[in-house]
């Protein structure tokens, strides 16, 4: 985050603004040709979606860029008013906000605090929060309100901002398409007169104080669907208040000193910074009796999503049996705000120089984090690996404490994971139940040091290989037939919507309805039966007791499973060989569970719950459990849909990875 301090040596105000305005307009013109080309293509797509807007939008103003030559610029240079009052005793900030199709900027007293002219990113509403006493930038966000749900995130953020802060808004490219009424009303309540009427490709800037006055607003309507509103430049003045008025007066304790440092620097964290009854930053959850994971290091892998990290660390530090001294947060890049969050909670954080790009960057960050973890805790036999977009269940450590000895003793195990890929609200039921699965779910898991040091670290994909670390770990060369232990009801919850392989649609389809345990101190059932051989005995016992479902019915229908509770049912699907998941994938699809690749299987067997009954699916004849099928019964075969349909179901990029 860029910081801004009142600075006597700041550049003269007018000179800066003329220069920027000129520069941006010139750039816009250059982009004009390109704009028209892509505009034509976009037009076709957009008409379908926004034809209603078309009816409303009747204006046809000509799109003409204001001409401004270099000569004009030079002349202006000579006429610039150089003299300014010294900033130090100044109680007024000059604020400039620029909104246009291809770039936005915000300058405070001549210092650029936001400048985004990158292509194909930064679309939507940019929001900047300034401290009303010092003028410091406390938060900088962009909400891509062209896309769904981003407006909800913006509302959430704006609600978190303390009263009295200065808010600056500007739109880049498009910010109205998914800006719903709730969000528009919030903007209206901040004093915006234009927000309720913002429409397709309008340009808009707004400066106001939360819960107070409006300092300025400018708007340019888009003349036509295929074009953007004219760039707008808002220049206004903001009156600063005294530092006393802008700070809270909490009792002077070590915790509050941390809080104060945090709250005077960043914004958007809500009640942690409220003057009256701020939310605690120390949690002191109950210790665990006989905690086997008290001395296991916890590595939190983070990027630049400080609000996510904040939520994640709150849940982690509230989990019973947590040992804050064993937690290290690894931040991928020199970002300040995630580090501020780490320090707020009194934890240790390490920043990591970004190497490589995209997936490979994540992969290298993982490697560095894991190596560092085992270096910092040389005694550790395991490490817990978490990500910044996970909620941690209250009994997360209790779950691990009860199961970690298996990972130590059973060499056929690859990991323990807190996440059940198939554990949705309608398919998971029993928080005391564990499974063995051939997939590696990630999302909160335990790694054995020997596995990392002896096998994974030496051949970890190098930066030039653009591989996902988790996909790589799932490859047979690495996994070598070993399995992971998972709970039926997940002990982590994946709340991240913004991420490398994430978007709102994908999250809603695959993660939102995931079941998450909220019961403390769950006593795990029959942990010893998770050992390699014991598990086979257990499966045979289960299959022996299971009632075979009526295979003449449609397995996608609810009526396929009788209206009972607590029973064990089995169905048989066709699975010609080990890698034949044709029917399983169709079944997973219609049951609305994870269907993007195969997860949660154990030797051709899947275990889940339907209507509170344990529901077993056996792939015949590939599974060794096929012998349980009554000889006369034909396994169910479900045909995959025609290719086109399948391709539309899920965005291809999103399907690439789960985490």
């Amino acid at each position, binding site marked *: 985050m860029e910081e801004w301090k009142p600075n006597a040596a700041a550049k003269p105000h007018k000179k800066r603004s003329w220069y920027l305005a000129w520069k941006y307009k010139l750039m816009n013109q250059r982009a004009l040709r390109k704009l028209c080309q892509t505009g034509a293509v976009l037009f076709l797509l957009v008409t379908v979606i926004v034809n209603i807007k078309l009816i409303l939008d009747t204006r046809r103003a000509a799109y003409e860029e204001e001409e401004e030559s270099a000569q004009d610029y030079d002349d202006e240079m000579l006429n610039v008013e150089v003299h300014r009052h010294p900033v130090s005793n100044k109680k007024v900030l000059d604020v400039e906000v620029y909104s246009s199709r291809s770039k936005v900027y915000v300058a405070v007293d001549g210092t650029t605090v936001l400048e985004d002219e990158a292509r194909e990113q930064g679309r939507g509403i940019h929001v900047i929060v300034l401290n009303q006493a010092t003028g410091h930038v406390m938060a900088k966000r962009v909400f891509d309100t062209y896309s769904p749900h981003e407006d909800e995130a913006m509302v959430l953020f704006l609600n978190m901002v303390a009263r009295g802060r200065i808010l600056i808004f500007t739109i880049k490219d498009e910010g109205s398409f998914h800006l719903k009424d709730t969000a528009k009303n919030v903007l209206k309540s901040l004093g915006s007169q234009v927000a309720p009427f913002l429409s397709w490709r309008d340009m808009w800037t707004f400066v106001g104080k939360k819960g107070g006055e409006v300092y300025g607003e400018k708007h340019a309507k888009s003349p036509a669907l295929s074009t953007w509103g004219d760039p707008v430049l808002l220049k206004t003045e903001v009156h600063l208040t005294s530092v006393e008025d802008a700070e809270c007066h909490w009792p002077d304790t*070590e915790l509050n000193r941390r809080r104060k440092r945090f709250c005077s620097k960043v914004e958007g964290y809500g009640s942690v910074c409220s003057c009256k009854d701020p939310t605690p930053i120390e949690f002191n959850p109950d210790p665990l009796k006989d905690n086997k994971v008290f001395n296991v290091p916890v590595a939190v892998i983070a990027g630049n999503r400080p609000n996510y990290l904040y939520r994640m660390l709150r849940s982690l530090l509230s989990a019973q049996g947590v040992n804050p*001294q064993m937690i290290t947060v690894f931040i991928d890049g*020199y970002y300040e705000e995630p580090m501020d969050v780490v320090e707020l909670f009194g934890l240790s954080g*390490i*920043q*990591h*120089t970004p*190497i490589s790009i995209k997936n490979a960057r994540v992969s*290298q960050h993982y490697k*560095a984090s894991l*190596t*560092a973890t*085992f*270096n*910092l*805790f*040389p*005694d550790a036999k395991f490490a817990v690996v978490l990500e910044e977009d996970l909620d941690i269940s209250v009994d997360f450590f209790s779950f691990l404490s009860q199961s970690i000895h298996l990972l130590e003793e059973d060499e056929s195990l690859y990991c323990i994971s807190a996440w059940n890929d198939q554990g949705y609200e309608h398919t998971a039921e029993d928080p005391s139940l564990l499974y063995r699965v051939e997939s590696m779910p990630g999302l909160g898991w335990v790694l054995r040091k020997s596995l990392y*040091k*002896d096998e994974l670290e*030496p*051949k970890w994909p*190098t930066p030039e290989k653009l591989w996902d670390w988790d996909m790589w770990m799932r490859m047979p060369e690495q996994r070598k037939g070993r399995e992971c232990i998972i709970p039926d009801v997940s002990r982590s919850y994946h709340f991240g919507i913004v991420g490398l392989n994430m978007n709102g649609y994908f999250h809603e389809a695959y993660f939102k309805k995931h079941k998450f345990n909220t019961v403390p101190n769950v006593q795990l059932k029959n942990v010893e039966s998770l050992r390699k051989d014991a598990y086979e005995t257990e499966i045979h016992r289960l299959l022996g007791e299971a009632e075979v479902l009526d295979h003449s019915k449609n397995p996608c229908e609810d009526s396929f499973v009788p209206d009972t509770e607590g029973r064990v049912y089995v169905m048989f699907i066709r699975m010609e060989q080990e890698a034949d998941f044709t029917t399983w994938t169709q079944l997973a699809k219609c049951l609305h569970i994870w269907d993007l690749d195969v997860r949660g299987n154990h030797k051709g067997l899947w275990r889940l719950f339907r209507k509170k009954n344990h529901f077993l699916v056996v792939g015949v004849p590939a599974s060794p459990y096929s012998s349980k099928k009554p000889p006369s019964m034909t396994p169910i075969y479900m045909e995959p849909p025609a290719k086109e349909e399948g391709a539309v179901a899920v965005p291809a990029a999103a399907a690439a990875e789960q985490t």
Partner: protein
Amino acid sequence: NGAGFSKVRGSQSGQDSTRWHVVKKFLGLISSHNIPVFLIDPLILGLVDKDIEEIRSSPDGPSPECKYFCAPRDFTTFALLDKTWKHEVGLFRAAEKMGFQWLKIINKDPRLDGMDDLSGIEIPLHYIFKLASHAIHLVVFYERSGNYLWHGPLRLKQHMDRKFVPFRKLHFGRYPGAYEKPELLLVSVDDLKVQIPKNPSSFLEEMSQSRFLECRYREARAFFQLYPDDASLDGVEFRKKAKSLLHLAVLTLNNLGVKFWLSSGTCLGWYRQCNVIPYSKDVDLGVFIRDYKADIIPAFQKAGLPLKHKFGKVEDSLELSFQGDDVKLDIFFFYEEDDHIWNGGTQAKSGKKFKYLFPKFTLCWTEFVELKVHVPCETLQYVEANYGPDWKVPVKTWDWKSSPSNVQYNGIWPVEEWDDVIQIY
């Protein structure tokens, strides 16, 4: 009790009750913050060691006189295990209230130094608490990979007060040091309850040879820029085997109490690239002939490493080779002369002898593939003697009889001795 005691002591000539008072205050401070420290002051431990039986047998007894903490000194040195305390600022506020001035010396965390892309996280290495004319030097020990404790060097930064205490007189901090994790004992000396190493004399012995060398991670990175690492499956596999062989060898030799160091290609690998050279085919260790023990061979055999060959004899040019899993372990024995050190080589088919000369060297600790091992402190001279000035350039074809720059022809074994000095299994 303490106050009365010190009155008596304070009046005696040559005694200094200030020191005793400062130590008592300091111990009170740290115990009120639940910070476990232990005494590592070499002068006091030396005195304590003489009376150790007596001190052990009366853990609570009152002392008739102030024997240990009253000798007038500028410092008393304590150690702190980093992982046993949270870095609370409360400690320093409380110290200030008690009248202590304090100084914190921080520096890069060496545990993350080997990783090219983690920013230099700084950690506290030393604290100094000063009260009146006495100072407490608190050395922070960190656990590192290889199951040992490490403390950092004491280096003052630009803005620091160079006269805060007479830094040159400190017993710890001239070099970084490596130690085994000591067993501790709670004792009462001079009416002060303190933890001390259970065996003070072995701690003092360790201290005299504790100097630690960090691997040259920056240079290693530069090396891999020039010569990218071998990421092939064979390379990975060899490193894994070499590492496990080295782990086994270190365990075996440590159990025997035989001191050894990384030699030849293994030493070069550590010095040049902080790793095993993937095409080096064997693991090389050096041992001074005075440390030779006859049970080395049976101990390795017991560890599952059969003797492959034995060349030379204890009096001359001894070397042993053991067969690991695809990787050979060579142990060369070194003979000390007035102005140099050498080891020998033997060509089996011809009985020719060779001699490899090195300048004299001392031993330092380092960390290598998660092990605490010795290397020659004067590593550069050692490596240059062996590999010449171009040691930085990887060479894949190596003839041990002609390639080394320090090889000398050393005659031929008499034929009648061959059965003894050339044993191949």
